[in-house]
């Protein structure tokens, strides 16, 4: 596999590992890794680095909802423009145009259910193109960005074997 592509895999599995450790796994030197990371960032392939947080373990209220949005387009307004308007809200953590029975899937985060539903009814629903919203509150998160939140499987292999 090409080093740059493989670097992407390594960062996807653990973006916090040291440049030296990445270099060792790729069989290149640290300066090459730095250069490849710069390239990936400037090309826009890597848009950011974030922690995967299990909010249940943080000990503060954190509510998340997945909101289905239906919109009606007109001659002047397309998906792009509606998306731009919705994406600017800090409460919106992700926004995707999807296929199927509704148009946008929006993740909304807030400190309480009240916050979240207020936000949807006061900021999203009034947008003229929005014809319908359906809000699903997240009850439990089991897995996030590839990280399973349950206990890992025990390694039941013998500690030493031939």
């Amino acid at each position: 596999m090409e080093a740059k592509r493989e670097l992407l895999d390594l960062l996807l599995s653990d973006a916090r590992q040291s440049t030296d450790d990445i270099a060792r796994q790729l069989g290149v030197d640290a300066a090459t890794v730095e250069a490849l990371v710069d390239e990936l960032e400037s090309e826009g392939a890597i848009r950011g680095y974030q922690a995967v947080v299990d909010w249940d373990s943080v000990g503060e209220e954190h509510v998340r909802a997945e909101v289905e949005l239906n919109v009606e387009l007109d001659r002047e307004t397309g998906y792009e423009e509606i998306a731009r308007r919705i994406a600017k809200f800090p409460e919106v953590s992700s926004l995707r145009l999807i296929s199927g029975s509704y148009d946008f899937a929006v993740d909304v985060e807030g400190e309480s259910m009240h916050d979240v539903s207020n936000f949807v009814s006061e900021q999203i629903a009034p947008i003229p193109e929005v014809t319908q919203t359906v809000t699903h509150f997240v009850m439990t998160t089991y897995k996030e960005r590839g990280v399973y939140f349950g206990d890992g499987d025990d390694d039941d292999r013998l500690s030493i074997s031939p």
Partner: protein
Amino acid sequence: MTEGTHSPLSKRARETPPSGIRRFFELAEEMDDIVSLGVGEPDFSAPWAARSAAIDSLERGRTSYTANRGRKDLRERIAEHVTRYDLSYEPDEEILVTAGASEAVDLAMRALVDPGDTVAVPQPSYISYGPTVTFAGGEALPVQTRAENDFVLTYEDLERAGAADADTLVLCYPNNPTGAVMTREELTEVAEFAREHDLVVLSDEIYAALRYEDEHVSIATLPGMRERTVVFNGFSKAYAMTGMRLGYALGPAEIIDAMNRIHQYTMLSAPTTAQFAAIEALESCDDAVEEMRQEFDRRRKFVISRFNELGMDCFEAKGAFYVFPKCPPGWEDDEAFAEALIREKRVALVPGRVFGEGGNGHLRVSYASGMSELKEALNRIESFVESN
């Protein structure tokens, strides 16, 4: 047994020492917080498709014996599978499905070795070859491979050890414990020696799918070798199916037939559930194997570079999931090093001498563990090396 009491045990059983890893296993078992680099099996689970095929076969109640040689559809797929190594074997006559490649090795020894026969066993190598020779009534002749050759077996190694008088030669590449592989050119020398001295070659190729720099070459594909070679392979390492116990032997009909006769009386047939898993593994799991291989490759590069940075000379092992670094300067005795390391830093690895004299001063390090464990283990080894 006190002096003079007659032991109920056979001479062979009495004279077979327990495996050298036993002591380290016991040390490791009584400690908490161990990071182990001593594991000889993948840390992955078998690909889901293979597990699912096993479950499905159980649900359908497929729990009876199979044909002695293994299910015919499995043998046909094995025949098809090994063509990727340019090997061509007839499913009905030249393929035997066994309970792990280990059983196949044992069967071959018993089918080929008469009392007084000599089997040349290159070392360092997997710990079972010598004992299976003994159990078959033969004599194992150790042939030391050398660190300066990166543990590749050479014509000179064979000559020096007196293997010209042997009847059979064991070959194990990609190698456990060194991770060494052999190229076509290197195998050509060994094949020449085998032909010149009329040796049968038992080629354990269980790690064939785990090569990182080049393609696996089987000695059986070299001129004049097919008729004198038995190839062993299986599902344990490539498909992470160690506990399913399924392997196979490929060889001339006469030898496979003799092995099957012994198998018929001792094992009857290889585990049925595992055979169903294996059929599916061969049919649809190439991608899963490739993913595991790529993951192993990253770890391999990581550990080799870490050991060399620590001053523990580590040649570039290109196969299996082991590297074989030297003890750091100041440590001659691999066993003393491994014991001090596990006691002080809770890192388990296997001293090289366990795999034969040629392994003295080296350590077998398995990278069949996740990156975070490998990093932790290497950090602990670093702090051990710095403070000793």
